[in-house]
């Protein structure tokens, strides 16, 4: 996924239990960008299906 702040490609891994903010009932749904710290929401499964894959050379 792409970070909403710095627009860098970031791994879509949710933070481990110790580094979660714990404010969301039902678990963490934010991926913090390792480069700038911005919190990006994780796409729900049904939305993932709607998003087509991006080609590797950066073109849609």
């Amino acid at each position, binding site marked *: 996924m792409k970070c909403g702040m*710095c*627009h860098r490609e*970031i791994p879509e891994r949710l933070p481990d239990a110790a580094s979660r903010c*714990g404010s969301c009932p039902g678990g963490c749904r*934010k991926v913090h960008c390792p480069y*700038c710290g911005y919190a990006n929401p994780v796409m729900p499964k049904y939305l993932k299906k709607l998003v087509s894959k991006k080609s*590797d*050379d*950066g073109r849609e």
Partner: protein
Amino acid sequence: MFQKPLKESAESREPKIILVGSPNVGKSVLFNALTGAYTTVSNYPGTSVEVSRGHATINGCRYQVLDTPGMYSLMPITEEERVARNMLFSESAHVVVHILDARNIERMLPMTIQLIESGLPVVLAVNIMDEAERVGMAIDIPLLQEKLGVPVIGAAFARKRGFEELYRAIDGFDPSVRASFGYAPDLERDINLLTEQMQGEYLVDKRSLALLLMQRDEDIHRQVMAVEGERYAGIEKSVSAIVFDRRADLHLRISLERKHVCRGLLDGVISQHTGRRTPFAEKLSTLCMRPLTGLPILLVALYFGLYEFVGGFGAGTLVDFLEGTLFEEHLNPWAESLGADYLRWEWLRELVVGEYGIFTLGIRYAVAIILPIVGTFFIAFSIIEDTGYFPRLALLVDRIFKWFGLSGRAVIPMVLGFGCDTMATMVTRTLESVRERIIATVLLALAIPCSAQLGVIMALLSEVPGALVIWTACIVMVFLLIGLLASRLMPGEQPMFYMEIPPLRLPQFRNVLVKTLTRMHWYFLEIFPLFIIASVLLWAGKISGLMDGLIRLMEPVMIALGLPLQTAAVFILGFFRRDFGAAGLYDMQTSGMLTPVQLTVAAVTLTLFVPCVAQFLMMQKERGWKVSLLIFLFVTGFAFAFGCLLNYVLLEAGVLA
């Protein structure tokens, strides 16, 4: 990392081509074209990161080709980048092909410098040239090659352009030709000090290692320790002294030095075709970051994004329809009549369809008031986010934030605070010093309203002429005043801020839609059960008389604020959830219970009022009991004192009367 394996298999004796570059620059397109169908994908040892390997035959020579995970610099942050660097530093490549996007050559060239600096056999492939040419950008490849001292090819691998040049560059690669790039004398002195102390044998150039040591790269420290043995203590001592001397700006200096080198390299290399003017996006990008033009642009974005769209359309038109028409005229009367017919017990009827009923209050608040406001806020937020405006905002406010002892980096938690202050409080940990974290936490707790609160307040106040101006002036004044005071009370060093600026672009419909739906999905799932629980608690409070007791307890404060006694319930709800409190205020206003002065005082006090329970718990987690309790008490006292003062001033001045 620095030693070759003792026994080499036939495959490992094959010369290696390593493909490296940022994500989405065309590495995999090149990898597939080089290797064909027969490739293997396996996890890099000890990690979950996948690495692709294959083979290519160029001019009769068989090469092993490795596709590395995307990386932005040789200073790794993610596990993927760590793996990519390990591969570069340990695989003894015949050639490292650095692929970059021609359109973003200025942002990506610093990594080429790092690769060359490390002594790696680099071939630079400037990919996606076709797109760059389409926007009028011309890159003088031979001149860049001459300046860099490594083979450079222009390519559009997806269009099958540049392969022949690449094959020739790989086949005829001469590792003896290599340029070196000089930094400022003081930085060179530090680099030399460390390289002279490193006496072991390394596969990577010592200059590159020295820079990574200075940036406190733990992996490199471990490797140098392993190679140097007893000499490491002296190296570590020198590194600590350099890091201490340059504690304010070391990373920034190194980044700026590389940028400076890249600017020199690209001077005369990039040009726009005659007849084509500077792209509008570039002009606008510059204007966004200059104070004289950036502030008006910010105000325009706030006016149309927040005031008109969220306040006017979301909290006005949509809430009027959902709350006023759908719930008040149709759903609530229908539910109440069903309750009267089928719910025989008074307490149960009250619980479901009463004053604080699950349906008549909890569901109505969540669906008819908060959801449309938050939904429109998320649309505006996602549009602004997708354009790449936020990093520019960070640079714009950097100098203002420096007055508060913060840097532009604090824009990230502040911007996130408009979504949810709890999560934003956690993000303050990304700020460099404890001082910055405390100041940002105080400002978040005091003067940054969350999205729903902001939307409701905008909708309420926009109906009273002058009220929104007073509210905005109060919040901005408090933000500046407390920020300045906090930075004076907690003196410390001026933080430095540096951020890569992504290209400014038109928001893409799909991105905005997906981001908005994602945020709304999670937000609604989060608040819906909480609003139900809140209405049950309110019902229980009403039945048991506890709510009345709490309201009576707050009576003197409400009198001092000049507010009706029922407003106490709004503040109690606001502590439970900020958005629930704001929805309560909306209810009071639409019932005609507040005068314009009372509405303004209540809105300002509620905005400044204590953070909600979740935010308080996060403050405690991040800052500890002592600091968080102090912030809590200060914010509570300040909010009510400011509210009383505002009430007094408005009444005395006869404003909004």
